[in-house]
């Protein structure tokens, strides 16, 4: 009975929910089932019930908590400012600790050890490329097929950026440390290249610390708390001395901003400043360090990743970047696309249902391109759009527009 780990939801976190219910209509799982058990208010009440000994961490509790997408759409609409995402990670840590079966423990090990190791990621990348090029993805198990279908074309091997430094022409505005991440490096190399090119052009010195590792977001979201804490501690040390840590996957930047919960005090000094790439690029456009191009490029359906919009409240920046690139944008309903990290593998039905809705909306929007600032969302959208649209990160579209503008001038 009760909670056992230091990650558990606390009394003060839980009592900040006054059960007004304003979060309910914003919750995708509540919208699907209409059940209190599948709503943020219900989940918080359930966490408090465990704290009060009304119920234990039983099967019903575990189901309630694991059905949550972790999209945190309940947070911006909560007038009581309940830290829902934090309590969710805490509840999942407890489920892992108290009901941790073999699969859950194995998952935790994969999320820490595999994602945190460049060598293992190289093997996975090579295997994935093989699957992709031989067409084996079509006969892959349903749980992973959707993800495989949504991948970009993967190269056999991508040279690592770790240990490199990129200098701007003039005296740097600041030094930023780029998180290469677990899958961003090998599978989304173009997003890194666009990020570095834009940051350097905006006057930043970009360093890519070599001893960095996976941010630990996927582990934390899955309840593998110890592993997440170890990964956080390694990164806190690796990025020491930079002005900003920058990530170009919304899930990573959101998690890095939450490191105070994960890295012990001494590893994380007061100077721990994290920015999503969209923040730094948008700031540079506003300051005139990066140019605004003339209109006339295609209409972009702009998807708001939950971990950008809800977790970091980054709402206007991606649109500003696309407008600076000369694109017009059309907003897409901010409800979660269903990717939600490993959720698409753990709960393929719910994930697919949300993914289909999102794809239908994009098809109706009249857009010719899709932009998303998170790799998981990008894969989900590409998969459900079945190759009909190009799906790219906003900074890639901006860099492409800058290169095209330069060519036409030349």
């Amino acid at each position, binding site marked *: 009975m009760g909670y056992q780990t230091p990650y558990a939801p606390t009394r003060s976190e839980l009592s900040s929910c006054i059960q007004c*219910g304003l979060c309910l*209509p914003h919750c995708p799982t509540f919208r699907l089932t209409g*059940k209190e058990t599948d709503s943020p208010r219900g989940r918080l009440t359930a966490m408090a019930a465990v704290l009060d000994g*009304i119920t234990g961490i039983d099967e019903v509790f575990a189901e309630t908590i694991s059905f949550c997408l972790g999209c945190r759409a309940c947070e911006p609409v909560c007038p*009581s400012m309940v830290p829902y995402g934090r309590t969710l990670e805490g509840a999942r840590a407890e489920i892992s600790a108290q009901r941790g079966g073999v699969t859950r423990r194995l998952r935790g090990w994969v999320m820490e050890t595999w994602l945190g190791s460049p060598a293992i990621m190289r093997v996975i990348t090579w295997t994935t490329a093989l699957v992709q090029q031989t067409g084996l993805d079509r006969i892959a198990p349903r749980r992973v097929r959707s993800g495989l279908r949504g991948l970009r074309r993967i190269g056999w091997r991508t040279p690592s950026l770790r240990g490199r430094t990129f200098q701007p022409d003039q005296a740097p505005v600041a030094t930023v440390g780029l998180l290469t991440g677990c899958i961003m490096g090998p599978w989304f190399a173009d997003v890194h290249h666009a990020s570095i090119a834009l940051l350097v052009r905006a006057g930043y010195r970009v360093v890519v610390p070599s001893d960095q590792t996976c941010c630990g977001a996927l582990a934390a979201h899955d309840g593998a708390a110890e592993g997440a804490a170890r990964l956080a501690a390694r990164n806190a040390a690796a990025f020491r001395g930079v002005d900003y840590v920058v990530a170009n996957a919304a899930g990573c930047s959101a998690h890095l901003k939450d490191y105070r919960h994960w890295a012990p005090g001494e590893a994380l000094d007061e100077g721990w400043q994290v920015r999503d790439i969209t923040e730094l690029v948008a700031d540079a456009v506003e300051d005139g360090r990066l140019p605004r191009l003339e209109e006339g490029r295609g209409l972009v359906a702009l998807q708001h990743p939950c971990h950008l919009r809800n977790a970091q409240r980054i709402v206007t920046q991606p649109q500003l970047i696309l407008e600076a690139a000369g694109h017009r944008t059309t907003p897409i309903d901010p409800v979660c696309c269903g990717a939600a990290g490993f959720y698409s593998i753990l709960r393929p039905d719910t994930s697919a249902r949300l993914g289909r809705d999102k794809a239908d909306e994009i098809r109706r929007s009249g857009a010719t391109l899709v932009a998303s600032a998170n790799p998981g969302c990008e894969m989900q959208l590409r998969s459900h759009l079945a190759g009909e649209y190009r799906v790219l990160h906003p900074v890639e579209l901006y860099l492409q527009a800058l290169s095209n503008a330069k060519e036409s001038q030349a």
Partner: protein
Amino acid sequence: MAATLTGSNTKFRDDLIRVLGAERVMDSTLERHLYAKDAGVYTGNPTVVVMIETTEEVAQVVRAARRHGIPVVARGAGTGLSAGAVPEVGGMVLVTTRMNRIEEIDTENRTAWVGPGVINLDLSAATTPFGMHFAPDPSSQSACTVGGNIACNSGGPHCLSEGSTVNHVLALEVVTDTGDVMIVGSGAPDPIGLDLRGILVGSEGTLGIVTRALVKLTPNPPDVRTMAVAFPTIEDAAATVSGIIAAGLIPAALEMMDQLMMQAIENWLHAGLPVEAGALLLAEVTGVTEAVAAEAEIITSIAHGNNALSVQVAASPEEREILWKSRKSAFGAVAQAAPDYYLHDTVVPRTRLVEAMRQVYEIGERYEIIMMNVFHAGDGNLHPLMAFDASEPGRLDKVKAAADELVELCVEKGGVLSGEHGIGIEKRHLMPLLFTEMDLDAQARVKEAFDAEGVFNPGKVLPEGSRCFDFGRPVPEGAWV
């Protein structure tokens, strides 16, 4: 957690599963706990929770419940504040959230048939393309359901000009205590016969279960102006409200909040509220552009005559939206002051607003309760918000005592028990303040006519002993009828 489906009740559970399937019948400890309360302070103890989807299912589960002697408590989104959906004596909580279809929108007659689980704001969003909306707009409108609005005869800021839910419901499909389906009211504006529709709206689930409703849709006004006027004191703001009404204007809404409330909202929303001021008046006028401009001018001049510090006019739909968001999120923002809250709902005659407010603060001081105020000033509907920590021993009792005093104060001044939240459990014991024995007996006889065995939401609204010669059951057992 005593009540479970054991013994003879397992048969009831089997009946429910036969009708609904196991996924829609919930009775684990945790599931029942999550349906034990609404957004208020009272807790009940459900025996079982069912998710219903069709009228026929409602009829079947009601018949089963009646057969097994299990009470039926209807629930929408659970945003109610007076415990109307709290299963006080156990029973089956019947959840309507899946009956959320907007079945038919008649744009010519400006009506719609909707399920009880349709979210209030979703209905307005669905009718926006036709230039219409559903007028009742409680603060919880982004989450609460039309069924809940009907049960509580809900109001909202714009009820000053539009009236409450009863004015926007034309007909209801209702499942009766015998599991039969009847339709009361009609599309005609002036139905003949006794007005059963009027009786059912506001009956808080004690007379039947609404399974569909024909609601009126209101055309969106051609123009709207929303103003936020800051005053040094509540008195100045209240005098302005009286002045506006005395000048012959009926604005679409007249809302007030005090400084503490503004600060809590501003801390969350960053809406740019004048937190230095003692009170804020939100006034909204709607109509044709010329009339809106003229009325806004009159309001501005009355405000300046009453020491207004500033008059801010919303310049864009976004600015208007954020002003309303600040008003409608007020009750949630209160948690920043303390972990629990009690949002009250009473009415005083508008002319006695100032003295009532003074006494409200006095009660807060006497009971050492943080008292924030946000209310529908235009119709004298007060919403004192009490912030407290329920884990302190005896605190909740003190808050409830203060709440009773607030009601007594308002009734004394010629007001009523509740403006829009309903009676539920919360104010049941205060009904005799307003109603004579004869009044209560008349209401109890209506209840009896609809639900003789007390299947629906037993014990709610009417205090025990409301029925004169209350024998507990209408006909002695074994009597020949």
